[in-house]
């Protein structure tokens, strides 16, 4: 059950992490962490609060530099990439932040247009509007296009954040605690929306969560992060049956 150390990138994998280490001062957050995400797969990384899940996801997108180890995204080792190369990878990898990170000073339309304009995809203004509207329709919030983020509810902000993540048609979507701060019903709606989008655009998803509903509904596989290491990787059903006391504490 314990994840095996992997070193080579294959076409089946869109993401492969080898021996990833990251510490902040004396605090070793990730310690030889290994993981792989297959094309079209939905993998949930489960761990306690403060176990380094968000650090992991920020290392993958290049917001944090690991101390050692490799993170292959579409065959490119993220820590070795320069700024332009990293931007290219980031246009294929969507990142939905835990706090949504919508730009408060911009309307919903401007929030969604921002990554489109910044990644210089050469899309015309007319096409921009069409793409923005299509992304908003995907999350069922086309009517909010000219609203400010402050005028939206928590669930709506989450959907808009998802629409912004989708706008570049990423091949991988990284979700950082997508259901945190939402009530059970809204959380379930967000999870269903995530699944719908994954099916529609055939994306691979890496979901960071400690919400067991999210783990149960959204995962093809679950990786358990304990003490900076990938303690176990398996399907939800198999992990649920596990007799390992450490794994059991997550599912009891």
């Amino acid at each position: 059950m314990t994840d095996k150390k992997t070193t080579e990138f294959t076409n089946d994998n869109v993401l492969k992490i080898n021996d990833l280490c990251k510490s902040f001062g004396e605090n070793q957050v990730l310690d030889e962490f290994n993981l792989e995400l297959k094309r079209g797969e939905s993998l949930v990384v489960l761990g306690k609060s403060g176990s380094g899940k968000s650090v992991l996801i920020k290392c993958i997108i290049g917001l944090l530099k690991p101390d050692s180890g490799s993170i292959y995204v579409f065959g490119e080792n993220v820590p070795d990439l320069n700024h332009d190369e990293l931007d290219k990878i980031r246009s294929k990898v969507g990142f939905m932040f835990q706090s949504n990170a919508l730009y408060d000073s911009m309307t919903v339309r401007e929030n969604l247009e921002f990554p489109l304009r910044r990644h210089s995809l050469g899309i015309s203004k007319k096409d921009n509007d069409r793409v923005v509207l299509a992304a908003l329709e995907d999350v069922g919030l086309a009517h909010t296009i000219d609203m400010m983020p402050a005028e939206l509810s928590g669930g709506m902000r989450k959907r808009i954040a998802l629409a912004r993540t989708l706008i570049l048609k990423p091949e991988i979507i990284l979700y950082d605690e997508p259901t945190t701060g939402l009530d059970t019903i809204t959380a379930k709606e967000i999870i269903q929306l995530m699944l719908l989008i994954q099916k529609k655009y055939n994306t691979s998803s890496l979901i960071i969560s400690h919400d067991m509903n999210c783990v149960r509904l959204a995962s093809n596989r679950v990786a358990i992060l304990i003490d900076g290491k990938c303690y176990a990787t398996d399907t939800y059903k198999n992990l649920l049956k596990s007799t390992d006391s450490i794994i059991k504490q997550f599912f009891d």
Partner: protein
Amino acid sequence: MSIQSDLKSFLDVCGELFRFNSRFFTYGFKPPYEFSEFLKQCYVIGYKSLPLIGLTAFIMGIVLTMQLRPSMADYGVESQLPAIVAIAIVREVGPVITALIFAGKIGSSIGAELGSMKVTEQIDAMEVSGTNPFMYLVVTRVLACTFMLPILVMLGDAISLYGAYLGVNIHSNTSFNLFWSQVFDNLVFGDVLPAFIKSFFFGFAVGLIGSYKGYTSTKGTEGVGRSANSAVVVSSVMIFIIDLLAVQVTNIWGL
């Protein structure tokens, strides 16, 4: 021990600010230029500050004139009031008071805005969206502050002098033409130029310190408040330090 640790943390902050400043000069003049964001910031920082700067400058002109009048009357030089007020406003009071008001309004707003963007991961989101947040947020704001404050100082000086004209006329009857001819007869190039140049430095300091405090904000919403507050305090102190250096330089150059 406490003094040592205070000194160490002060030196740490100075070092970080120096690095932040170096980063500004590294990125500030490199393409891609965020020209539309720079213009937007000029509008927000410059145009939207004008009513506040104008009002305070106007009041300052009246008050300064009314405060000076009795002393000048005692020495029998009341007729020189427009000239003295003009020199005081253009050389010192105008740039420093305008810069302090500017630090209060803009320094705190930049500190709070960037601080809240930092703690709500908006700066990270910008980076993920293929944007260099330092260039987009910091460089544009620092440049807008640097170029807008001198303009505000000039406009503030003009409004202040108009306030002074009204102040003079509260107790005497001085014609509009006489007042302005006295002002311009007594103002020389050496009064205007150093004040104009130092206001660029004031603007740069306010923009840089506000951005630094916001961009390096930590500890959630409490940290945002602290960033906004210390942006105002530090940039106000910096304005006086720059003013002190500027007066030494102008004295050496005989201006």
